Structure formats: C-alpha cells, structure tokens
C-alpha cells in the first residue's frame, strides 16, 4: 500500500512526485514503462527547454536530469522501470493499479491517491487516410527522432515531412545534420503550427521549403516508399485537382498532431473533455473521481515542458493535501465550483472548473483557434469583466494563460461561468 502512485516517469510524473514528497507524502511509487526516467525529453536533444522554469536554455536530457537526480536520491520515492500500468480501478478509500513488469510479473498495487502522467502519443498515419500502398518508410517524426537520437540509425535519405508541428521542423534540421536531404515540409493549413523561430532555424537556415495549404494525397512504392504525390488544398482543406505533383523520396515523416494517451483514464470511468482529449479537472488538476489527479500532456498537449512542470506541481501538491486529509480523517465539504468556458476565439480552457474558495487564485490556461495580431484576451463572468490583457500575437501552437484573483473568484455570484474570449 502506497500513499501515492504516479503513472509515468516523464517530466509530469517526476515533478508531481517531487512536489507531493515536498508536501509531506511519505510513500510514493512511480511506474515508468521505459527503461529510464525522463520520458520523451531524453530524445529531444535540441535546446529550448527551461527558459521559463530555470531561466536557462537547456536541452531535453539536461532538463530531465534536473528531476531524475532528485527523484533517484529521494528515499520516499520508489521507481519501477519497465513497468506498464494496464488498468486503474478507482475505489472509495483506495485506488488499485494493475501493472506488469519483466522483473515483478503482474502487480496489483494500492494507493490512497493516483496521479495520471502518461503523456501523449503522435497522431498515426491511420488517422490521415492517405491513399496508396503500405511500404516501409512512413513513420512519425517522433519515431524518427528516437531512431536518430537514441538508436543511432538514419531511417531514410530523401525525406518529405508532412505537418509543420515543432517536432517535424526540429527533425528537418536533425536529418539534415545527419546527411539526409530534406526536400520539403508540407502543411495542410495556411499557417504553420510550429514556432516561427523553428521555421527560421530549422527550415530557412537550410533552404528547406515550407509548402503551406499543401498535403500528401498518395504514397508510392511496394516494399519501400519510392515517392509521394502532393497537392494544394482549398479553403475547405480539400485537394485541388490539377495541382498534383510527384516527389520521389524514401522517407515520409508525419508531424500531424499529438493526442493525450488516456486509455487508463477512460477505463477508470474518469470524465473526459472532448476539446482537450484529457480529463476534466479542477484547479488542483483533480479529476471528477476524488483522489485521482491528471497532469502534463495526458491532461492537454503543452507547447513548453516548463508549463508541464508547473501544472504537475499543482497536481502533486493537490494529491498531498488529499492524502493529508485522508490520514487526518477530515471530512471535506463538497467544494463549490465555478465552471470555466472557452468563449469566442478560444478552443479550450484548463482547468474546466475552479473552486470558489481557492486562496491562491487560479491561472486559466487556454489555446486559441486561429492566428491573431494585436489581440486582447478577456476574462469575464455574468457579463462582468474580471481581467484583460493585450497580446501582440496569438497562435494555436502556443499556450496562453490569464489569471483570476482569489477575491474575484470568491465574490462570483451563484451560477456564474468564467469565460475566456479573444477580442480583435
């Protein structure tokens, strides 16, 4: 029996475990399915991590190591590597996690609280409906990143990248350094979902063209990929007949979005927000099931790991407070919640509800649906404005936030809804 089980040993799981321990939790178990801690950061060898949290520009492995060392040295945190959680069974007093590992076999583990920190997966080819054969040489950008950066293999020489997310852009530069010829990056939308600095540093610096409003409509080759057909798309994102062009290549990388990995969450009956693909949570990142928390990319896909760390600390501290109350036998009054809502121009808001008496105030994180220049972010409830801020640029690829002060939150009338909207 543990106080807390954390599922996932990436940046989210490690930050949650460390914060829970700092707040007095005595026995913590981290389950990690890989053979090492750190998650996806270990293969992200470029810099750009930690500017907000550490005020330093670190690589992924360096950022991970700042958490791996304290986790490994902490006697109150146990880590099981190569351990895959298969099922989460919520209970009233304790929750059960079924896991399997090579060394321990099948495990039935119990804890007072659980933090879900499983991260996200890349959207696979099957989600795209590209016509053609099924040759080798079509992989996700993250898979290519693992082959190149961790295993030391170059998965192709003539490369086309579909999707201009940051992983795709980073891999365009990385494959170039390793001697491959990256022919182009095709993006379905009329804008890139990647950071402008990555377009400059990863494409422009190496003369790699970015084709906007363009997609792959067919793949060619039987055993091995021999080429793709690309085509321009109209405003409704449909391919325009007559614009097809054949591009010979032996590798197609897909960088077409990330999906929170919530099979365990769904299996446990935790309610999911269709807009984020993650659990519905309160300001402590506690789900609708008491004692089950969710944080990091499994809750919603983040742009920066720094925000994953901050969010996971909220979950870790929330879990610690939950466990403290359980241990003290305190009965908790059902909290009074204010729901949050995505208004005009906003795709989603996390957390989905905030406790009215939250003494620290609540930061509402959100993503916009399109690109805005010189826009205003406005937070209101029942027609009354609570906060506003000017932003020179808003883009779907970047997470934004706006804060509500504790007094404003406490004074909201019954039935109020907190809405975030964008004004041009």
């Amino acid at each position, binding site marked *: 029996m543990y106080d807390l089980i954390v599922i996932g040993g990436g940046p989210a799981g490690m930050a949650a475990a460390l914060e829970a321990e700092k707040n007095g939790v005595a026995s913590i178990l981290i389950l990690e399915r890989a053979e090492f801690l750190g998650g996806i950061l*270990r293969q992200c*060898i*470029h*810099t750009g991590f930690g500017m907000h949290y550490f005020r330093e*520009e*670190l*690589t992924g*492995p*360096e950022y991970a*190591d700042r958490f791996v060392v304290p986790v490994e040295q902490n006697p109150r945190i146990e880590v099981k590597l190569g351990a895959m959680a298969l099922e989460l069974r919520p209970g009233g007093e304790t929750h059960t996690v079924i896991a399997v590992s090579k060394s321990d076999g099948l495990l039935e583990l119990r804890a007072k609280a659980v933090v879900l920190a499983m991260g996200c997966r890349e959207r696979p080819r099957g989600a795209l409906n590209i016509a053609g054969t099924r040759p080798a040489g079509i992989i996700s950008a993250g898979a290519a990143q693992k082959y*190149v*950066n*961790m*295993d*030391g293999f170059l998965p192709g020489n003539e490369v086309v990248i579909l999707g201009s997310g940051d992983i795709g852009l980073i891999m365009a530069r990385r494959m*170039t*350094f*390793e*001697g491959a010829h990256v022919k182009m990056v095709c993006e379905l939308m009329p804008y890139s979902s990647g*950071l*402008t*600095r990555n*377009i*400059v*540093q990863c494409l*422009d*610096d190496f003369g790699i063209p970015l084709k906007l409003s363009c997609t792959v409509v067919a793949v060619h080759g039987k055993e091995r990929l021999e080429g793709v057909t690309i085509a321009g798309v109209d405003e409704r994102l449909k391919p325009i007949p007559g614009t097809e062009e054949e591009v010979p290549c032996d590798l197609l990388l897909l960088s077409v979005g990330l999906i929170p990995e919530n099979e365990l969450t769904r299996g446990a009956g935790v309610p999911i927000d269709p807009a984020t693909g993650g659990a519905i949570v309160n300001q402590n990142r506690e789900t609708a099931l008491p004692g089950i928390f969710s944080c990091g990319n499994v809750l919603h896909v983040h742009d920066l790991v720094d925000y994953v760390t901050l969010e996971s600390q909220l979950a870790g501290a929330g879990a610690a407070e939950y466990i403290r109350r359980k241990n003290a036998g305190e009965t908790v009054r059902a909290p009074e919640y204010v729901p949050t809502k995505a208004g005009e121009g906003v795709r989603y808001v996390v957390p989905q509800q905030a406790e009215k008496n939250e003494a620290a105030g609540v930061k509402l994180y959100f993503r916009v649906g399109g690109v805005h220049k010189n826009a205003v972010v406005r937070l209101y409830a029942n027609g009354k404005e609570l906060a506003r801020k000017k932003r*020179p*640029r808003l883009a779907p690829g*970047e997470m934004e936030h706006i804060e509500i002060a504790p007094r404003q939150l406490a004074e909201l009338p019954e039935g109020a809804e907190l809405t975030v909207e964008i004004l041009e």
Partner: protein
Amino acid sequence: MTKEIICVACPVGCGMQAEYAEGGSIISLTGNSCNRGLAYAQAELTNPTRMFHSTMRVEGGPLVSVKSAAPVPKARLMDCARATFAVRVRGPVAIGDTLLPNVCGTGVDLIATDRTI
C-alpha cells in the same frame, strides 16, 4: 541596403526590417519589440550564429547527446555535423563533459548533455 529579418531570440518571432551600411552595421531597425531583436539583427548582418546539437557514438555503448557550449557561426553548422559524426568517445560520460574541444576551429567546445551512467 535593407533586409527583412525574422527574430529568433524568443517565441514571438518579430518580423524586422533593417537598414544597414556596407559591412553590416545597422542604421535603422523597425518591427522589433525589444533590444534583443536589435542584437539579433546586428549579428545576422555581420556574423550569424546558431547553437549546434547532435549525438556522438560512445565506444561499446549507445549514443550520447551533445551541444555547442556557445553558438557557432551559422555557416559552419554542417562542418560541425560532419566532425561530430567522426568522433568516438570513451565512456562513462557525465553531463557537461567536453567531448570535442574547439570544434572545427570555431573556438567552441562540444559538451555532453546527457550521461551514460
């Protein structure tokens, strides 16, 4: 002379227009939101630099990730990539270890960003 430059100093990515003299010194700059933009634009016109990151092979083991301890000239990035490819390092490696001093004569060291133990 004038040049359009997109700033990469932070995620905002300001589009800047620089007017510059022979040799690259900036006469006027518009479009930047802060002074980091000016510093970046000046570097772009005289000596553009970038951070370099790659991996090196460890003898008898996996790879270890490396970065340049400081930005290197942009024009030398591919030279750095080729030089890195040829190196075999002897483990164990700790974060911060210098694995290739003065890469390609740039005066910048390549250092480990991960550890093998």
